[in-house]
């Protein structure tokens, strides 16, 4: 399972659905609370209106009841009040719940009476409200919380009036109406509102999710197909349903894939043709060349029996056949690079041994003109030894060709992941501005100068291609009459790349 954060970041479906769910939650919340407060205000107002009417009529009746009685002492009064309190009036909706009576502060001590029906806590009626009731001639009301001596409580409306008993004094008279029924109704409404809200949100969320999924599916399909195409599975196409905008995306996409496939297969065919041609030319040219070569050697072997001019011709024939042969080999190698048909055959080898052997091969004579500076321990590298040998052979042959009698320095140096082989000569060198031209096919440093050895003019170009196959580089420094410095740098391990160079191409 993906983490929610990641899902949010990477999926349009999750993001859109999430946003819509949050927005609809806010909207539904606002609407719901507005509705709730309107309904609850309406219910309360209705109840209040009835309660006030009810309380007023109860107060009037009580006033009349009190007026008929005679009060000689407190006992008589208490008796009447207890009677009133014992049987709270069950008028209208039997809504009046409790009654409370308080005598005014300034009343004669003997007529003082505070009491309430049932076991109502007298403090349920706030002091502030009582003062307002005392002062006013009008009916007063307040929303409050009833408390009973046994700990129960409930919401209620208290409606207050003043009663006057002539010859005795004033009393506050409170009729109390329970709001329990209304609260139950509101709670029920609230529950329904919550349920409706949650259901709506879920509905909106799920709908959005599935609609988005449906919309996104072709896009995901396109992405998947594109990915497959990239990895080379060119036969894959998008599924198309219907004729809407999404379908037209599919059609265009598939058309693109078809044209891509055609282009690629055309190029592949070209490349195959090229490789076939190279291979055929190779075979066709090599067989007659072998015959020519053998014939020339047979002729050459008996040159002593010929006239001098014929003998010399035999010598020229031999040397030019050799030159032709190496030119053919190099040309085939170059065309293999051009057809991108060159393949690395990686092996683990000690590059120090390889360089030593190459030096011995290129310059087998006893007088040492090549000084090798190399680490004492083996330097193991993963390379195609045939190609690396060819690069080094090329660089060293080049140096020998241009050394003008001076020694050549060959240096091997390594870092953790790279190895460099530098070949430095102190001979004729080249114009530094020609640096780039060096690696061009058939380019020669001085076209007027006689060639000293049988170089084909393709050597450095092939060396550079070989180095590139290894993710390597060849750096060059040179100056006219001061010599040249060629440095091959390759990663030690297959698949690596060059990050630093143990040797840089410069004066030394």
């Amino acid at each position, binding site marked *: 399972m993906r983490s929610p954060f990641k899902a949010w970041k990477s999926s349009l479906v999750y993001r859109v659905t999430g946003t819509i769910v949050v927005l609809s939650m806010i909207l539904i919340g606002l609407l719901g609370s507005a509705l709730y407060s309107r309904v609850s205000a309406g219910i309360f107002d209705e109840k209040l209106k009835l309660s006030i009417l009810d309380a007023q009529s109860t107060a009037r009746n009580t006033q009349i009841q009190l007026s008929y009685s005679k009060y000689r002492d407190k006992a008589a009064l208490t008796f009447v009040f207890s009677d009133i309190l014992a049987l709270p009036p069950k008028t209208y909706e039997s809504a009046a719940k409790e009654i409370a009576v308080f005598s005014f502060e300034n009343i004669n001590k003997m007529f003082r009476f505070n009491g309430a029906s049932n076991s109502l806590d007298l403090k349920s009626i706030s002091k502030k409200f009582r003062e307002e009731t005392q002062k006013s001639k009008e009916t007063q009301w307040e929303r409050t919380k009833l408390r009973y001596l046994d700990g129960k409580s409930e919401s209620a409306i208290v409606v207050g009036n003043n009663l006057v008993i002539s010859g005795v004094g004033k009393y506050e008279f409170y009729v109390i109406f329970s709001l329990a029924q209304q609260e139950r109704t509101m709670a029920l409404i609230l529950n329904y509102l919550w349920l409706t809200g949650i259901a709506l949100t879920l509905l909106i969320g799920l709908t959005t999710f599935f609609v988005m999924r449906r919309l996104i599916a072709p896009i995901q399909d396109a992405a998947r197909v594109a990915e497959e195409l990239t990895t080379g599975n060119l036969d894959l196409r998008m599924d198309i349903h219907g004729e809407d905008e999404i379908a037209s995306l599919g059609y265009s996409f598939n058309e693109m894939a078809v044209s891509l496939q055609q282009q690629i297969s055309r190029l592949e065919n070209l490349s195959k043709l090229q490789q076939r041609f190279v*291979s055929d030319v*190779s*075979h066709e040219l*090599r*067989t*007659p*060349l*072998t*015959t*020519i*070569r*053998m*014939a020339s*050697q*047979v002729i050459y072997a008996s040159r002593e029996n010929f006239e001098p001019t014929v003998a010399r011709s035999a010598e020229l024939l031999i040397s030019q056949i050799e030159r032709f*042969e190496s030119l053919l080999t190099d040309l085939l190698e170059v065309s293999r690079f051009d057809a991108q048909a060159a*393949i690395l*055959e990686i092996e*683990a*080898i*000690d590059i120090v*041994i390889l360089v030593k*052997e*190459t030096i*011995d*091969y290129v310059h087998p004579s006893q007088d040492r003109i090549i000084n090798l500076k190399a680490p004492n321990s*083996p330097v*193991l590298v993963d390379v195609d*030894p*045939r190609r690396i*040998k060819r690069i080094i*052979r090329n660089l060293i042959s080049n140096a020998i060709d241009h050394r003008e009698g001076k020694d050549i320095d060959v240096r091997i140096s390594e870092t953790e992941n790279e190895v460099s082989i530098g070949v430095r000569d102190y001979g004729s060198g080249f114009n530094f501005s020609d640096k780039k031209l060096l690696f061009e096919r058939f380019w020669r440093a001085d076209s007027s100068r006689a060639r000293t050895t049988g170089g084909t003019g393709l050597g450095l170009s092939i060396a550079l291609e070989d180095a590139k196959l290894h993710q390597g580089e060849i750096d060059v420094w040179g100056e006219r009459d001061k010599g040249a410095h060629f440095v091959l740098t390759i990663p030690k391990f297959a698949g690596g790349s060059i990050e630093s160079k143990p040797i840089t191409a410069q004066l030394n």
Partner: protein
Amino acid sequence: MTLIMVVDDDQDLAEMLGIVLTGAGYEVDLVSRGDEVMPLFAAQNPDLVLLDVMLPGLNGVEVCKLIRENSMVPIVMLSAKGDKQDVVAGLEAGADDYMVKPFDPAELVARMKVRLRRSITEVNSELAIGNLKIDQIEHSIIRDGQVIALTRLEFDLLVALAKEPGRVFTREALLSEVWGYRPATDTRLVNVHIQRLRSKIEVNPEEPKVILTVRGVGYKAGVPGSSQ
């Protein structure tokens, strides 16, 4: 006289090879089609076969396999392509050596000589490598009393390693000792033959005990008598 069978469809090249080899003192038998090789081979019993890869009738690699079914005669392939697949296919079919056209005739003759040379019986005629016994007089390899059939080249390769037990041979060194090459030639030859040899003599070729690889350098002989 030593008889060389030259199999090549190019008439001129075959004739030229005939001239060169006759000049070097060999008797030469020319064959131009791949499917003609086996009947003639059985009749003539040549001492060495020079075999072109591209042949009408039956290609060189197939011919090589047919010969190897019942003969250990030295086979040198002649290939017009230096491509890896061709070379390796030929070597895996059992060829001992190969030459890429255009080759130097002198080098061809030199290598043929190495392949034809009889191993000179030395004083130390019993050699051991890993758990193998090499009988140089009988020219055979014995493991646990069982004789293992090897081509002459494979025998030479094994003897070269066994003669100097401590030495690590680079592939170039093996090329010059066993094949008679000068250095800087193709070392794939060695890899393929070492693999073939291992498949014949090692109990488990994945975990060689007779011919050991020294990473980055080459090969050396396993300790004689070491159990596998």
